[in-house]
């Protein structure tokens, strides 16, 4: 039985500075690992928005099925319903309330393989108000390319200061 730690941070945690940022990007991801995990804590300074996920900066070949709870109803929809520009994967709702950050976890198995890339996305936002959103997403990127870049971006608004994202690699033996 292996005893090495298999959950390893790749690079450093990105923290958005005072000027905000349109995106957080992890580039030159090595194929050293088996799976990828992204953990993000995101806020914007403007208003309710969708956070999107892109692989290798691609803007096509994404499909997904989403389930969303809003505090009053549970619904399910496909990508194009709420994101008119189908240029990324739904990775949760992000708001502008002070001190309130959306938590998001993305799991991508076999990211360096030659099959299409399936993933799992969970995102939660809670604001002590009548409406908040939790999102479960089944995404697929129909590309056989190894994932070397992961990008989080706001659909409309920039990420605010103190937003963070970290990338981890999972090794198996």
């Amino acid at each position, binding site marked *: 039985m292996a005893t*090495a730690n298999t959950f390893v941070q790749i690079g450093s945690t990105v923290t958005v500075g005072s000027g905000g940022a349109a995106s957080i990007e992890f580039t030159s991801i090595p194929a050293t690992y088996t*799976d990828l995990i992204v953990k993000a804590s995101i806020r914007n300074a403007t208003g309710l928005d969708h956070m999107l996920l892109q692989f290798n900066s691609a803007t096509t070949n994404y499909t997904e099925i989403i*389930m969303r709870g809003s505090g009053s109803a549970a619904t399910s929809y496909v990508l194009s319903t709420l994101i008119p520009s189908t240029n990324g994967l739904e990775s949760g709702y992000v708001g502008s309330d002070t001190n309130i950050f959306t938590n998001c976890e993305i799991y*991508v198995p*076999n990211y360096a393989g030659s*099959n299409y890339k399936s993933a*799992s996305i969970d995102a939660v936002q809670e604001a002590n108000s009548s409406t908040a959103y939790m999102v479960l997403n089944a*995404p697929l990127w*129909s590309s056989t390319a190894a994932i070397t870049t992961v990008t989080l971006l706001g659909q409309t608004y920039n990420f605010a200061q103190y937003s963070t994202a970290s990338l981890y690699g999972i090794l198996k033996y």
Partner: protein
Amino acid sequence: MTAGATYTSIASTTLSSTASSVTFSSISGAYTDLVLVISARAASGNYHTLKINSDSGSNYSRTWIYGDGTSASSGRQSNASFIYLVTEVIPSAASTFDTVITNINNYSNATTYKTIMSRGNNSADQTGATVALWRSTSAITTLLIATDAGGNYQIGSTFSLYGIAAA
């Protein structure tokens, strides 16, 4: 104090030939929690199932929620002889695999029943979550993952088991 490894690869299988099941046996009690990650294709119309310690008694129950792109639904099942890990069908299309992540907390205790939480993702079918209960106080030492209809998992499917150790 030197920190020990807290997230460890216990075993992993990548299918080089088709198979209707994958078994992880002799799972050590050295960890606190287990994480099972599946990325699979299978013959059309099959679902993931799980049996623990070869128990085929009516000792399993589950509650699920899923979205299929049109609506969200929840349901449950009691006194089952196995667990449907998630509600989504396993993809069968070429190059298309699902992503299933299962957490089994406190799996090795010999005092309490075991709760299992799974997230299933097939972008052509459903996204959802299932919580299951195995009504046994035995420590978990074997996990049998199988298709429900006997169809084979396809080549390239991966099954990985990790152990999380409390520091």
